[in-house]
């Protein structure tokens, strides 16, 4: 039968096979390890030593180089989890579930760090640990969503059901997150229009090249590092399932 999607489906199933994934992971692990060490080492030097202090925030701007990459990773991991959740629901690929279970806690850590470093940045800059700004609030909601999904995934006696429920909640959250972000932004402009504009300037300063460079390097480094962690976690889970299968316990 002539099926225009056949190629795509074959592509998807190719990499959805755990054995093939193991082979791919064996190649990718050292690559990501080396890349993350190099990038993070250079990025840290650049962030702490080489890059200039901001003319307004002086050295406090260096918090940005951990804060912003964490925020990127929290969002990126959530987005990829959303894709994996869709794949799991539609095609029931085991690997998608493994990815969900492996990546969600990592994403939650990135999200928590984004919030924590944000608070550490906010205190000297705005004089408060926490401001009910649109951006902060929507990241907080995302943090709660992460926690809810992880709790849901572990709350079932039958792990398949946990994976399925978690996938659904991830997908619903993926739809709902823009709505939350939008509503929060809207809520914020009603109450405190002043802080938003100033906050926007602080969160997205027109970056000089010397500051953009460490930011991007740190972002890439963190991405490789977390990808490495996720791959290790996925392989651990494959191992766990193998052991469970061998011992006959489901």
């Amino acid at each position, binding site marked *: 039968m002539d099926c225009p999607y056949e190629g795509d489906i074959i592509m998807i199933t190719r990499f959805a096979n755990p054995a093939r994934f193991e082979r791919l992971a064996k190649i990718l692990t050292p690559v990501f390890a080396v890349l993350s060490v190099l990038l993070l080492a250079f990025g840290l030097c650049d962030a702490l030593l080489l890059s200039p202090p901001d003319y307004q925030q002086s050295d406090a701007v260096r918090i940005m180089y951990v804060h912003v990459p964490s925020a990127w990773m929290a969002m990126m991991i959530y987005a990829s989890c959303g894709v994996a959740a869709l794949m799991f629901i539609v095609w029931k690929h085991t690997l998608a579930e493994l990815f969900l279970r492996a990546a969600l806690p990592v994403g939650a850590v990135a999200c928590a760090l984004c919030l924590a470093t944000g608070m550490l940045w906010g205190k000297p800059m705005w004089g408060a640990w926490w401001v009910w700004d649109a951006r902060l609030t929507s990241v907080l*909601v995302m943090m*709660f*969503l992460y*926690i*809810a999904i992880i*709790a*849901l995934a572990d*709350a*079932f*006696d*039958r792990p*398949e*059901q*946990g994976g*399925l*429920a978690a996938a*659904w*909640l991830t997908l*619903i*959250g993926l739809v*709902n997150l823009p*709505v*939350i972000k*939008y*509503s*929060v932004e*809207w*809520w914020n402009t*009603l*109450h405190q229009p002043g802080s938003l504009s100033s906050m926007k300037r602080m969160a997205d300063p027109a970056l000089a090249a010397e500051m953009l460079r460490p930011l991007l390097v740190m972002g890439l480094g963190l991405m490789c590092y977390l990808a490495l962690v996720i791959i290790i976690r996925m392989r651990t889970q494959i191992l766990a399932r193998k052991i469970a299968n061998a011992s006959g316990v489901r």
Partner: protein
Amino acid sequence: MMAVYRHFLRRMSRDRGLAAQGFAFFALSMMVCVFTIGSEDVLLTAILPGLAWALLLLSSLLGLGDLLEGEDLDDLILAHKSLPGLMAAKMAAHFTATGFVLALAGPLILFVILPAASLPVLCLWLGFMLGALSFSALGLLGAALTLGSRRNAALQALIVMPLCVPPLIFGAGALAAAQLDMGWHAPMAFLGAFACASLVLCPFAAAWIVRMKVTSS
């Protein structure tokens, strides 16, 4: 379909027990809050309406534990009615047993406590109705997701509350705007849109989840 809905309502409300409980919870929490905040009119007028919204959300979480659990889901799946329709009936039963009563009674409580001139009547009632509807729809989703899990109630709260942020914000925003004599139609329209979307989508999602959970077990 009416017979099915009536059955769900009986199961939900345990012969009107749940509605009374929800109302008592709402009123008691309100009283506790007044005791902790203090009873000055200015302060209460500023705080209580927003608080009522939060309490509306919390009390609509009350009935979720029994919404799908304990029901014989096999019968629903094999029924000669569409499962999304049955889920919508569940949602309607939950709304009538919890949200509807509170949406009617909540503003009344506010009228008793606060100076009447400070309260926008229409905005309050409309907002509470639409908000309670969206909470019931999202609650149904939460109940479907936690179906068959351990430690149900806490998990449901954890799942439903982040999802309920938009209606809460729109509703409380409309109320705050109305109290300040500003235009509250825009946030109310957003709330209505959210309520409509969740009312339409949630039964379908819940039906899909329930069917998948039952047949894959």
